[in-house]
């Protein structure tokens, strides 16, 4: 009985992971117990270490292992431009592209009433504090171009509209290498609405 309940508990615990249902959880549990106990110990150690070591940066809200993260404390970054993103993965993509040299704020989500995510889940008080305490001159809203992302961007813009800060948003339209014939109507409409003047 003891063993059975321990296996059940492990199965339930693994179901916490996103995209893992009962079948996958069972497969993982049996694999770890039967084939890879060393691997299981490594997971336990890494998870426990990460839970103790990783917290949120007090400025940008990204995951970090000290009070202030590497990007926020870098002298090379332009502290006057703040890019607001939804998730750490978005931040990584922008960093990978190398297009942005300012600092970030990570919301850790977007407004989604049907999923019960409102402003209070988005660390907005911390965002206000970061903006108030730093010398930010421009906020770049780099939320996803989904309805939720755009609603989040609109809402954040309204939070700062009474402060003397330039607010911009990532451009929308035809992607690099995009062929018009294959573009979806939404993107094509946006591209026309936000067309750029050349002369």
């Amino acid at each position, binding site marked *: 009985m003891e063993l059975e309940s321990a296996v059940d508990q492990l199965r339930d615990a693994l179901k916490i992971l996103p995209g893992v249902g009962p079948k996958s959880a069972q497969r993982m549990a049996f694999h770890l117990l039967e084939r890879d106990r060393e691997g299981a110990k490594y997971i336990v150690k890494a998870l426990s270490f990460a839970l103790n070591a990783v917290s949120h940066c007090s400025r940008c809200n990204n995951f970090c292992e000290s009070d202030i993260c590497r990007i926020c404390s870098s002298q090379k970054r332009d502290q006057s431009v703040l890019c607001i993103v939804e998730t750490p993965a978005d931040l990584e993509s922008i960093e990978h592209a190398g297009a942005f040299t300012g600092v970030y704020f990570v919301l850790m989500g977007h407004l989604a009433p049907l999923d019960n995510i409102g402003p209070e889940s988005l660390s*907005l008080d911390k965002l206000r504090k970061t903006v108030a305490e730093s010398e930010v001159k421009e906020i770049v809203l780099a939320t996803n171009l989904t309805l939720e992302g755009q609603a989040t961007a609109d*809402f954040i813009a309204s939070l700062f509209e009474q402060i003397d800060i330039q607010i911009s948003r990532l451009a929308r339209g035809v992607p690099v290498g995009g062929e018009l014939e294959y573009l979806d109507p939404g993107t094509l409409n946006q591209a026309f609405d936000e067309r750029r003047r050349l002369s």
Partner: protein
Amino acid sequence: MVRQRIQKQPVFVISRRPYSETSLVIDAFSRHHGRISLLAKGARRLKSPYRGILHPFTTLLIDWTGKGSLMTLTSADCVRRPYTYGYENLMCAWYANELITRFLHRNDPHELLFDRYSELLEKIDNNLKIEWSLRLFEKHILAETGYGLNLYQEAASNKTIEPHTHYHYIPEIGLVRQGDAVTSGILVKGSALIHFDQEIYPSPEDQAGIKGLTRYLLNWHMKGRELRSRRIFREINRHLPRNTAPITLEKPAETQ
């Protein structure tokens, strides 16, 4: 259960959530099939044909196949330009979507309600009587799901409603004239009931009465569970700068 292949169905996406690495599970409102769940395989891939179109408030024509509670999307075409609302109007549209998810059962067609929903999205897009349109949508969703309101006569005597009299609306009973030894239900003025019944744009005072009535009835039917979009509305208003007008499901300056 027979495996179905359904083609060219008008639908709206109500909500979507990621599934596995690259797919989406869509909760859609189909005109002829009601609320359905669909798996959109690979919809989050960079070159997916579904990319950019499987969003709420987009009119789609779709094909699907499968059986059971989760069917597989096989084709999707965008019929008209997607509605792109600012966050205030978006909240109203999201509220309508939440009503659909809370009140409609799966695979239960509501063609009239689908058309009403389509009209509602158009009105929100045009900033046209948004509050009033939401109230009517609330009435229609209650009627379509078997909780229709009798707004034109008293429950016991079948007497026609008088505009200057106040009535208690009691769920599952109907209207009882004020003063008839009733304390339950919600008190509404006759003129508000008449306007709501005949769908004639009411005065601001009557509109407030109608709002109180639908809110009371929705809460009653949801057995006290709160609508998430309402809670998010309150949170948003708490965060807005002090001298910004709060957003509500109703817009004081909306076009009439």
